């Protein structure tokens, strides 16, 4: 089972956990990406996420499918938030269930690492004195 969602409302860790639990899984690894209060020591006020929605969803699905096959995962959930996010709010949740725990960690880490490289979602950090598209420039 793979469940991909791109939402402009709050994400739920409980929901993601409940979606991946299964009779045959012994381990669930979950990654929760939250908004930090600073970047390189500079205070962040909020973040704005935007996406190229259909492709963001299809790229997240590709990642989940690759991970599911490679690590023989039972279930993989990727939920990503868009819109305006405040400090501590959740930008992304990735949950992976596998029969044994090592595979769950590896698959979950692969999903978040790859998501950050390939999924067309962009975030802008808003500071007191300006704003910056994250990682746009070298």
């Amino acid at each position, binding site marked *: 089972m793979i469940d991909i969602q791109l939402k402009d409302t709050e994400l739920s860790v409980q929901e993601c956990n409940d979606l991946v639990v299964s009779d045959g899984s012994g381990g669930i690894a979950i990654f929760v*990406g939250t908004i930090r209060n600073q970047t390189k020591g500079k205070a962040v006020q909020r973040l704005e996420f935007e996406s*190229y929605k259909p492709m963001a969803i*299809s790229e997240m699905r590709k990642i989940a499918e690759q991970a599911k096959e490679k690590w023989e995962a039972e279930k993989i959930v990727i939920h990503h938030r868009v819109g305006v996010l405040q400090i501590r709010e959740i*930008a992304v949740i990735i949950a992976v269930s596998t029969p044994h725990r090592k595979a769950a960690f590896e698959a979950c880490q692969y999903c978040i690492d790859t998501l950050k490289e390939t999924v067309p979602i*962009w975030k802008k950090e808003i500071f007191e004195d300006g704003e910056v598209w994250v990682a746009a*420039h070298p």
Partner: protein
Amino acid sequence: MKINVLAFGIAKDIINGQSVEIELEDGMDVQSLKASLCNKFPEFNKLRSLAIAVNEEYQRDDFKLKEADEVVIIPPVSGG
């Protein structure tokens, strides 16, 4: 042919809008489109990377474009 190119993230700021129309010779590829964009908007040269998606898939430089394609500028992504 005229290609209507959509923009997201910093690309939207660079072209100062949601989309831009680029005039290319028929049969031109992704590389030509990138060159045309960088020529028209030199700020694209300063980005960490510049990718093009055609019909919701990343495409390499030698991919041939058609007028009806949905073409999107993908500046460096930063999800998660």
